[in-house]
């Protein structure tokens, strides 16, 4: 069985936000408004976190693109009373909107704070409804959502492979953020496949994971910056 995972090379990331916008466009995530900003209710499955260190003039800044970590041992799944979020056999932490009762246990239990609750109905103007991706559902008020590794793309790739009577190739499936990343900082693939790039990179000495000490075992690996960053 495959285990989909991501490697994020911090050496390459320029914080350009292409992944963030690509994700919103692919997954029908509505843009926020000033009220949502005030109340911290804006939704962004992929975000670029920043860490600013030092004092003028010796300043350093790091950018961390942060999708869902798709943990091996996901804290959100443990608390879901209705099985709306679960770990699927291919390593993706999936979310079923129709099962979600909006209790928000999972949003509170996620140490990476990357689950988002729909406090209000997404406001799409009639014109903008045209650009919605038909492969992904629009959400309703009161459900939790998060990064799905563009799971619908996997389904599509599998269908295409079946139609062409062949095995699914690893490169058939990439999430929207990975596809658009201008510097190649995001790398995606099968962590179980010893020949894959993500497998190799996840084992090198630069690799680390966010909040590793919690034992959540994220399937998203980061590669630290090289010496240039000091």
């Amino acid at each position, binding site marked *: 069985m495959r285990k989909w995972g991501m490697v994020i090379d911090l050496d390459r990331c320029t914080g350009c936000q292409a992944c963030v916008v690509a994700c919103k466009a692919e997954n029908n995530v509505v843009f926020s408004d000033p009220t949502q900003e005030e109340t911290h209710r804006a939704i962004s499955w992929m975000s670029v976190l920043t860490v600013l260190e030092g004092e003028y003039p010796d300043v350093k800044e790091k950018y961390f693109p942060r999708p869902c970590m798709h943990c091996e041992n996901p804290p959100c799944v443990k608390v879901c009373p209705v099985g709306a979020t679960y770990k699927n056999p291919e390593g993706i932490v999936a979310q079923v909107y129709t099962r979600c009762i909006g209790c928000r246990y999972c949003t509170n239990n996620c140490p990476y704070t990357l689950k988002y609750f729909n406090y209000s109905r997404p406001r799409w103007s009639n*014109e903008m409804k045209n650009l919605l991706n*038909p492969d992904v559902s629009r959400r309703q008020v009161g459900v939790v959502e998060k990064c799905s590794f563009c799971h619908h793309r996997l389904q599509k790739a599998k*269908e295409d492979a079946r139609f062409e009577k062949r095995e699914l190739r690893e490169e058939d499936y990439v999430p929207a953020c990975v596809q658009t990343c201008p510097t190649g900082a995001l790398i995606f693939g099968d962590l179980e496949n010893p020949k894959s790039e993500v497998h190799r990179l996840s084992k090198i000495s630069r690799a680390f994971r966010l909040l590793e000490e919690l034992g959540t075992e994220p399937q998203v690996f980061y590669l630290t910056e090289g010496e240039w960053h000091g």
Partner: protein
Amino acid sequence: MTIKRRDFLKIGGGLSLGLPLYTCISDKSYNSTSKSSWLAAVEQWIPSVCQACPGGCGIMVRVIDGRAVKIEGNPLHPLNKGKVCPKGQAGLQLLYSPERVRGPLKKIGDRNEERWETISWDEALNTVSAKLQQLRESGKSHTVAFAGKNQQNTTDELVSRFFEVYGSPNFFKFDEWAALKNAYFVSQGIYDLMAVDLHNSRLILSFGANFLSNWPNVMENQRIYGEKRAEGDLKIIQIEPRFSIEASRADKWIPINQGSEGLLALGIASILIKERLFNQAFVERFTSQFNEFRDFILQNIYLDQVSEMTGVPLSTIIEIAKEFHTRQPVVAVSDFNLSYSNKGLFNILAVHSLNALAGNIDSPGGFLRRRQAPLTELPPVTLDSIAKKALSEEEHSGTSGSDLLFPSKNAKDMIDSMLNKSPYGISCLFLSSPGHQFVSFIQKKKADILESIPFIVSFSSFMDETSSLADLILPDTTFYEKWQDHHSSPLSEIPIVGISRPVIQPLYQSRPLESTLLTLAKTMGEDFAQNFPWPDYRELLLYRMKGLFRAKKGSIFSSSYEEAQLRILEERGWWTPQHDSEDAFIKDLLEKGGWQDPSYHFNERSFVYQNNSQRFVFVSSFGIEGVGSNENQENEDYPLRLFLFDLPFTSSDSSSKNMPWYQENLGFRFGLLWKIWVEVNPETAGALGIRDKDIVWVESPQGRIKAVAKIFPGVGPEIVGMPLNKTEYPLASKGEADINDPLHLLEETYDERTGIPDRMSTRVKIYKARRR
């Protein structure tokens, strides 16, 4: 229609998956399409070119049942190779923006108010045509003006051709890179930009250049940055007053007093010259006036003074100079940021002189000049006597009578001269997205403009500031709905022609600017129309594209492997045809999305140096007096210097406020979504009693605006930084978003030599605002 494979996917897939998909689920809120049909959606991927910025990246647009739903990169396009920036990703929000103008509108009642009446295209075109003909017959055709932005496409040619035939010299294109072109004109005799071969250079010494975020070829630079960081063979030194994105990605950030970048460059030059660390062979063979330059430097540049005036420690200057010498090939780059100062041209020239000292002009890893794509030239125009007479009138450049060395057209001067009616008044003005700076001046002088220009036509696709001025709006489509070509920016050394085609039919009653002009041309009489023989704009484009087939070089977009092979062959003088006929060529061209020529020919001296001596000219004779002496340094009322910067990917475009997905991420470094911020050094903030996220007023003698204070160690204690082109509303209607535009704070000062507005010397104070 028969049921296809996709139907089964819809029916079966949606239910069995964790994620509810497709239209099979009856609950309305899960339906992302309004289609009630169960028939298969028709999916298409259409190659086109993104024109959300001047870059022109290749894109593939996913169109489902006539709706454009997603943009991905065109993997064959040599500029972006399948990648798309955040602005490009949000592009469809332009297409489906609620702010779109639905059809031709005529202003009724008072010109200062915005009351509109919908009219038909026939009526609109007749109005314009009658007006143009009447002016022409009364010998006033030169009083018609067109203001747009500098674009790399055939529309530019069409518009200038139209006004030439009509008889008006007043076709204004605003080009923020003008100062850099002026600098290359002085030093190399070319009014053009030079490309930087980042692939092969090992040190980028950047004087405030936003090469990772605001250059038209930013996608290429980002890709090279990623590759070279992974290889570890790249060093970036960013010299800039503020800790920008580039500074955060650089090996070293060197803060500098704003406006004194050129002086630092001369300081570095003085070390290179004194220590004989420059490329003597190159200087001898390819440059002139070096001795004057050397004498000037030895007599006038003292490093301790440079250090004091720039604020860069002496040891750092020496370190940079050494690094500059040892890490060859190296490039010293600057961009339009340096030009927005009262010593702009000097700054850019001084930086470019470092490149000549290093000998990296027209060499691998240095500065290259892009060849023009071999498009067919439009046939020469035939002018009638009215046009000939009118064209001899003085051009309304906005700089007449001034003693500027390089009168580059800029928004402010142009508007001023229109308002002063010198050399003559403008009786009809056409506006087509002339860019953010122009727009901000318009807002300041709206009443005056309406008073002195009797008839204004806007081609804006959106209800915005230019359309609010207009008496008539002839809404252009967005670039997703029309035929267009796009020529790569000269900042990239490869000539690329991308073909942009309509991915969907024009929405509402909008009509491409190009068809409007062609239609107008046909109403202007037979003599006029014979200069525009093409039935539509697509035909005109294809006419130009045929030149690519006949040129016998380059190829239609191809895989990296084929591209490399072609480059090797072409650089050795070989070329093999890939198509039998023009038609086959055009068909393939439209399918793949464009044409490119990956080869580069070095040592074509007359192409790189076009001045009389065919050499790089060192400039030492002007501009240096008074540099770095911070004239208006002491000012008790306004103790802080204002540093305005462009946000990533915005450059000069004012349409970006119609892309909320893109706008909301611009403040990501500060966790801000919809607020304009002001960056304050912790020390300064402490002294003023300002805390992080306080609402403050930023006030200059010109006015004040409200912003969120962000405590940021990336600016010096005497500077506050503010972003340009950030809107405060998800969708900005009627210029609301620009009320809080930091451009309004600027003092009216200009580069003495180029007339470009000075963004660097405005002083401000900040103080806490009472909330609401």
